[in-house]
């Protein structure tokens, strides 16, 4: 009897001891709720098939994403082993110790050479040019444009356009052409409008939209290494870029005052606008006839050049980081090793994910896989991003507060707006001791 009891206890102890090992074979990745997260879940299912490690991609709506992630970080919670976080979070999350330092992993696997340079710079490295890395570029993304091919190729429209502007109606190569085409197609009496742009100022929508104009006009948000904004944010080039964006707002559909990726895709699916700005990650819905009745006649192009030939686009996308409070860090590193393999990255692209893997991006196969991949490929080598400092949200709030009334309400001038914003950002940088 006593022997049986010992056996029973030994069995219970064995089960108890083996339980943590079994539990460690699970990983949770946290991301926002959108199509790429579904593609990632499909990809990690293959990892599970290979290794037996269950990986779950847990999602939350975009509006909640930052709040939920940082609430978990602040609580030092171990609910998530990895997170596909926004590029702007790098400063806040790394300085606070929420992310595991991936510098050694990055250098060992030569990710600086394997991944597209812009994605390394903006998704992984903080502070800029420091050689310290906190994420592996996961979902490359940037702002591009969709347009109505049938409107552009209509002979009557083409003739009318040529007569009015003196050049052929085609995909715009410059911002001046973009503005002309938006003006040309803006016909409120026909319920047809020129362009759909981002105007939502509740987070980063409006500013990401403005960046496309500001960067391509030769402007910048400041010097990310010295925190100097005077003469950069309010330079003539930045002012011209902001004025161009304001001009575009005049050719948007009515009530276009709180619009982001959903509304901008609707502008095309509902036949409202000739051209629409959006992140490439939202373009799959536009080539799907089930979600876009105009799928057959929708085309895509990269953000056009500014007056001096500068061509940049606002960066979207995210890198994948290991959360410092994860109890499965070793397992997470193994997952990342699998994720960065060339064959995994190719598979990631096949499933619909936007790989940041340079060789995959440059391959003919990838560039011809969808109608928008060529524009995406071009864009990923000319992207710029917002500040990634820990106080980025305060910078964003000030930018929204200054720029929105000018763009949507026509209040003040672009110079007044950017001068005021320069003063605000200087104050913020002084507050955090970044400048004297």
């Amino acid at each position, binding site marked *: 009897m006593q022997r049986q009891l010992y056996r029973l206890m030994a069995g219970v102890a064995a089960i108890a001891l083996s339980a943590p090992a079994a539990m460690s074979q699970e990983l949770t990745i946290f991301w926002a709720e959108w199509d790429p997260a579904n593609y990632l879940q499909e990809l990690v299912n293959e990892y599970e098939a290979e290794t037996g490690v269950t990986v779950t991609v847990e999602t939350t709506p975009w509006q909640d994403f930052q709040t939920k992630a940082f609430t978990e970080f602040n609580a030092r919670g171990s609910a998530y082993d990895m997170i596909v976080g926004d590029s702007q979070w790098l400063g806040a999350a790394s300085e*606070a110790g929420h992310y595991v330092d991936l510098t050694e992993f990055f250098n060992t696997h030569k990710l600086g050479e394997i991944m597209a340079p812009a994605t390394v710079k903006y998704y992984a490295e903080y502070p800029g040019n420091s050689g310290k890395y906190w994420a592996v570029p996961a979902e490359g993304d940037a702002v591009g444009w969709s347009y109505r091919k049938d409107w552009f190729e209509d002979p009557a429209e083409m003739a009318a356009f040529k007569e009015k502007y003196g050049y052929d109606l085609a995909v715009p190569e410059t911002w001046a052409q973009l503005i002309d085409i938006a003006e040309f197609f803006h016909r409120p009496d026909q319920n047809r409008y020129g362009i759909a742009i981002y105007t939502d100022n509740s987070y980063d929508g409006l500013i990401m939209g403005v960046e496309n104009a500001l960067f391509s006009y030769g402007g910048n948000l400041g010097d990310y290494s010295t925190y100097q904004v005077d003469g950069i944010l309010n330079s003539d080039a930045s002012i011209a870029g902001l004025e161009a964006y304001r001009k575009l707002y005049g050719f948007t559909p009515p009530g276009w005052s709180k619009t982001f990726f959903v509304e901008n895709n609707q502008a095309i699916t509902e036949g409202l606008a000739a051209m629409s700005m959006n992140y490439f990650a939202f373009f799959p819905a536009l080539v799907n006839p089930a979600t876009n009745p105009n799928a057959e006649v929708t085309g895509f192009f990269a953000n056009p050049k500014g007056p001096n030939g500068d061509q940049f686009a606002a960066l979207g996308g995210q890198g994948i980081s290991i959360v410092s409070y994860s109890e499965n860090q070793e397992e997470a590193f193994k997952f990342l090793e699998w994720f960065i393999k060339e064959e995994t990255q190719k598979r990631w692209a096949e499933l619909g994910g936007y790989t940041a893997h340079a060789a995959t991006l440059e391959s003919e196969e990838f560039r011809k896989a969808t109608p928008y991949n060529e524009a995406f490929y071009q864009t990923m080598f000319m992207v710029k991003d917002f500040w990634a400092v820990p106080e980025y949200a305060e910078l964003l709030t000030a930018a929204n507060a200054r720029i929105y009334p000018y763009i949507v309400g026509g209040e003040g001038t672009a110079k007044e707006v950017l001068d005021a914003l320069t003063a605000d950002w200087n104050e913020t940088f002084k507050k955090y001791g970044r400048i004297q």
Partner: protein
Amino acid sequence: MADVMTRLEPNTRAAARGLSDLSIRNLFIIPTIAFLIVFNVFPLLYSLYTAFTDYRASTSAPANWIGLANFRDLLSDPFIWRNFTITAKYVIISVTGQVLVGFGLAMLLNRPIPLKGLITTLLLLPMMLSPAVVGLFWKLLYDPSFGIINYFLGLGKFEWLADPQVALYAVAIVDIWMWSPFVMLLSLAGLSAVPKHLYEAAEIDRAGPFYTFFRITLPLVAPILMIAIIFRTMEAFKTFDHAYILSTQPTTELIAIRLYKMAFLEWQTGMSSAFAYIVLIVVVAITNIYVKYLNKAKAR
């Protein structure tokens, strides 16, 4: 003390129910007090402490005591004063609208009309809806391209939410639509409590309808109407959901929205705690003024 609470006189109702005072204390009062301390009193005191620090919940840096700096920075920030001005304007428009519409509906329903019960129930529906849902469908109603409001009012492509000068009124209209039934309900209770003989006496004295309204109806309903105003003012000050969904115009950025951004987007925890206390002080001060008037109205 323990004896008093544990002993139950035989044949009493408490004994029949089988619950002693001690049981009631242990089962209901102590858990309630513990809940209040953990979820109300502690956060209140902790946030009061953080209001005087530079604490940021997003970092692991310790909170440093900075005295009144947060309060000084907030009160010297023109954007914050703009938020207060916008909120004050919103509260005035919204509460005034709710009182006029709600009291008007109560006056109409306080007379014998067919299907009165059904009509009253239908009128109460808006306040039973989630503010977030209300925000989402009013956004569609206001849409300049296909919104039903412009269609019925013949306003063409009028931009309710995109026009910075109109957006606040549009948000207030939604609040009026949603919460007028609340004022109506309380007013209806007040109106039905007015003694009928006062109206009969006024009729015998050949008093006109205006005289009757201002001398009998309004003074007698005033205390309960004042309670409705107190509740609605406090709630209007805290408006967030539908305003946040409907518009992101700077002209509609109410203090609750600014507070949310400061606390959960910018993670300025210390600063936002100070802001919350300033809002609390303002709401308590306004409520006190109302309570004073309520007591005066009751005394009359």
